[in-house]
């Protein structure tokens, strides 16, 4: 199928494909009969080529990779054909396949913590990959392992090789996985969600490393991800999967510019983009079908805004799009061009509340004021043999405020202290140091009753919609719980639940369902409804969409936007995804190692970042458009966040700061001696904490969101 497409420039014309997958199907054993996971996937790769397989959870993308490697549990049934240089791999014995795995086809898994054996040393695990295939002595394999670890950027490799996986950070573990994968110069490299659990700066490092690995080994590479922006940056071709099937494929540039399958159009339209902040998002309504009971016809039909009767009866095959080397599985692929059909957009732009009247920021009262907040944690080691070995300062003197009707985005990587900050605020407990006031009342001075009373005013929506709702309670009880805690009568609770469900776009009948019966998007709406039950003034949003598939994320973001305008809510939006924060926030605070390094108006901070860390963060965020993405230069940071128990003197960022590395020694001294305070920058109340701060636009031109531009798009 796709193998007939002309190969891209990296491979010489006319050669047989290096790696070919044809009509691959995978089925698992379900509660009631087999459940198909992959339903006929085909692709081919030549040397050095990169294929991106994109899909949401349950699309079958990971199952297809495991099937190729022969790593599925024996209960799964696999059919079709997988050929490496013409040799059929499906149906080989485990012994024969083992000789190919790791030497000719290598794989990098998601979640590198559970993917490494916890009881063996890192060096031994890498050395094992060498020994299995190369028959060298233990000592030689160990030396080679250290070389490999060094090659993938593990500092101090010889010594770190003796460490255990739990002593490595997520990014470092992923480097180890890559070292094992390239140990034997594989022909094919499969990376299954290689950056999913990683922070954005670490993601940039790992993606760069994968690119290096590809160049070192010349391997044909398959990158499996849910992130369209990642594929835009590294892949030559893309396959979009939905409900176990490829629904669109082709070279990345034309697919992104002019997708033909409505699903692809919807996906691209629902991703918030750092370079187009004001653009409204088009959510794809509904959820993917239950694979155990696939409907007749096109699996996307129930979510497709342009479906026609034939879509309900006949499932479209993946067929060529006229005059191109692309394919799409849609009956109407011929009519669709550049996201429009018959002149109208395939996904109509949603109605977004018109911008609220903007009274000047200084005139609005502060909902939350934080001054010099400090929070310390004891550190302990060991699990069974626990002991306290010291104290770390997770939040070290941060100050910010949120005015009425305003959304502050608090961004930073994992471990920077943003979650600690949020938890400290939500506890409504007196801080160890510093001052927190909510609605003008100092938290430290509150009585027990006063504290409970204040709970009404600040509520929270959590990240994980699967964990944030008690699975044992029906939805109605979940939403009514805060009301119950405040002694609202049963009758009034019922009425309020109905209103709240309506407010978040669900119907009253959802009140009798259990969370397990609902999709991720619906659950997150229920989380929002619960948070709104007490009519708070401030909503803390802790990564509210990061656990959702992109197609669903857009709907929730639109709802949050709507609620903010209609209810005049203030948001504290905590996130690591800068594109999402860019979309939601009016103001931004960037956090690093327990400190705020840059604060200000969102347009200012994103458009004219002055702190080298903000600049690096922004540059690391991929943009889902191949043309733009490939022209960007990345500022890559070295290593991980510093150990909070052992921070560098002076500026905390200097151990990773690209600017510091370029400074002349006399200027460097200032960075290592003096801890830089937040100081005002060019305009407004834009502040950053850098001795040598300077404006450095990172995003492609036109990215700034001007006030006028904003009201246009809103």
């Amino acid at each position, binding site marked *: 199928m796709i193998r007939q497409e002309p190969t891209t420039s990296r491979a010489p014309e006319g050669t047989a494909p290096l790696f070919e997958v044809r009509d691959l199907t995978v089925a698992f054993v379900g509660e009631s009969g087999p459940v198909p996971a992959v339903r006929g996937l085909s692709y081919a790769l030549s040397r050095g080529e990169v294929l991106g397989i994109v899909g949401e959870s349950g699309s079958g993308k990971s199952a297809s990779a495991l099937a190729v490697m022969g790593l599925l549990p024996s209960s799964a049934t696999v059919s079709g054909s997988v050929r490496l240089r013409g040799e059929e791999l499906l149906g080989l014995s485990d012994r024969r396949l083992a000789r190919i795995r790791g030497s000719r086809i290598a794989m990098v898994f998601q979640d590198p913590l559970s993917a490494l054996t916890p*009881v063996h040393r890192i060096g031994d695990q890498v050395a094992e990959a060498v020994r299995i295939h190369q028959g060298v002595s233990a000592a030689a394999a160990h030396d080679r392992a250290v070389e490999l670890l060094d090659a993938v950027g593990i500092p101090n490799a010889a010594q770190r090789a003796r460490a255990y996986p739990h002593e490595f950070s997520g990014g470092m573990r992923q480097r180890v996985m890559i070292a094992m994968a390239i140990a034997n110069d594989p022909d094919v490299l499969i990376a299954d969600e290689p950056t999913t659990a990683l922070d954005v700066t670490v993601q940039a490092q790992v993606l760069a490393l994968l690119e290096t690995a590809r160049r070192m080994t010349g391997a044909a590479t398959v990158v499996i991800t849910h992130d369209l922006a990642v594929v835009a940056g590294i892949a030559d071709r893309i396959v979009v999967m939905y409900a176990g099937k490829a629904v669109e494929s082709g070279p990345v540039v034309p697919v992104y510019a002019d997708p033909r399958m409505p699903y692809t159009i919807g996906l691209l339209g629902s991703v918030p983009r750092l370079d187009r902040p004001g653009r409204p998002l088009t959510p794809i309504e509904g959820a993917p079908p239950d694979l155990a009971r696939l409907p007749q016809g096109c699996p996307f039909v129930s979510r497709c805004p342009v479906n026609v009767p034939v879509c309900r009866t006949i499932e479209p095959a993946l067929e060529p799009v006229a005059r191109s080397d692309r394919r799409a599985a849609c009956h109407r692929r011929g009519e669709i061009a550049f996201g429009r059909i018959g002149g109208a957009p395939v996904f109509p732009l949603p109605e977004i509340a018109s911008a609220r009247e903007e009274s000047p920021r200084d005139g609005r009262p502060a909902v939350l004021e934080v001054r010099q907040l400090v929070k310390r944690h004891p550190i302990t080691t060991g699990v069974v043999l626990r002991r306290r070995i010291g104290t770390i300062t997770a939040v070290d003197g941060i100050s910010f405020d949120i005015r009425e009707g305003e959304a502050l985005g608090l961004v930073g990587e994992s471990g920077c202290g943003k979650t600690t900050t949020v938890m400290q605020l939500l506890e409504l407990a007196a801080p160890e140091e510093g001052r927190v006031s909510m609605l003008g009342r100092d938290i430290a001075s509150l009585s027990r009753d006063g504290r409970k009373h204040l709970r009404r005013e600040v509520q929270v929506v959590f990240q994980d919609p699967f964990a944030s709702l008690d699975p044992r309670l029906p939805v109605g009880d979940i939403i009514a719980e805060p009301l119950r805690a405040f002694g609202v009568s049963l009758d009034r609770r019922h009425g309020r639940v109905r209103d709240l469900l309506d407010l978040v776009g669900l119907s009253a009948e959802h009140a009798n369902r259990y969370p397990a019966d609902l999709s991720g998007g619906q659950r997150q709406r229920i989380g929002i409804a619960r948070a709104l039950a007490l009519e708070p003034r401030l909503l803390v949003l802790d990564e509210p969409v990061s656990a959702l598939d992109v197609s669903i994320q857009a709907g929730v973001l639109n709802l949050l936007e709507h609620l903010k305008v209609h209810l005049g809510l203030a948001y504290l939006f905590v996130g690591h995804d800068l594109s999402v924060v860019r979309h939601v926030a009016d103001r931004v605070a960037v956090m690093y190692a327990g400190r705020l390094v840059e604060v200000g108006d969102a347009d200012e901070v994103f458009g004219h970042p002055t702190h080298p860390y903000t600049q690096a963060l922004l540059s690391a965020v991929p943009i889902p458009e191949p043309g733009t993405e490939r022209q960007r230069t990345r500022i890559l940071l070295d290593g991980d966040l510093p150990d909070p128990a052992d921070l560098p003197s002076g500026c905390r960022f200097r151990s990773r700061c690209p600017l510091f590395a370029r400074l002349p020694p006399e200027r460097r001294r200032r960075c290592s001696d003096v801890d830089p305070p937040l100081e005002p920058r060019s305009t407004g109340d834009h502040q950053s904490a850098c001795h040598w701060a300077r404006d450095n636009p990172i995003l492609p031109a036109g990215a700034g969101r001007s006030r006028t531009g904003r009201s246009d798009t809103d």
Partner: protein
Amino acid sequence: MGRFLLRRLVHHLVLVFVAVTLAYVLASLALDPRSRYEGRNPPAPPAVIDAQLSEYGVNDEDPLPERYVHWMGGVLRGDFGTTVTGGSINDELWSRALVSLRLLVIGSVLGAAVGVLVGVVSAVKQHSFIDRLFTAVSFFFIATPVFFTAVLLKFGALQVNEAAGETVLFYTGYETPGLEAGFWGTVTDQVAHLILPTLSIALGLTALVSRYQRNAMLDVLNSDFLRTAQAKGLTRRQALYRHGLRTALIPMAPLLAYSFGTLVVGATFTEKIFGWHGMGEWVVDSITRDDINVTATVALFTAVFVLFAALLSDVLHAVLDPRVRVTA
């Protein structure tokens, strides 16, 4: 690590001390040594009984704290006091402790080792005939009380001996009294005595451990790191032995600590039924005989044994799992 174990030891010692104190107090309150003397024929004068009881430190007319301090003071000096009939506890203690320890140590090591083996085989061959067989047998022995297992074993031994025409398996005592058969003869004799009692406590432990081990191993079978090991080029079997086995052993360490308590109780039944003069038999007899000091002494012995098991399991856990090690 060493320092940490020391702290752990202190924590346990406090527990042992409190536990023994409680046992002594409870035994003093619930047991009534006076009744043994009063029921005698001819009746002894009350003053004589009082003097006798006070001498043994079990007179209920004397204040309890005083008796306790007296006894505990003796224990700290290595003197466990006298039995209710006036014999020295020390004389009996060590021989009985050795008898019990022989049973407990061999039984637990054997039980745990076979249990791990059975569990691993069961998991690797999940759903096979052998797995089903092991599962059925394990369930039988988990469900059967030790004293019933022991009676059944005795019953079985009788059949074996009858079939063999001579006594192959002994089911009374831990050696043939007065046997003079040289070194090897004695060893053979003791082993023949050991088999049934050891089996009767080891079987239950094996059954229990094998179920846990099977589950732990099944969990490992689905783990990501096993998949990585295979992706590197190991066959499933190789990956299982090189990466899976040790990880699956980790949950066994805490289990070991808990199961020792059960084991001690099991040993009590075993000793009683097979006529071993160990600690278990002693405690059952001494409770029946209203012997406070012996009861408290056995409580101490048991608590110390459980303490050692807990420490051993801590060490084992740290050896198996680098994640719980503490760098001092």
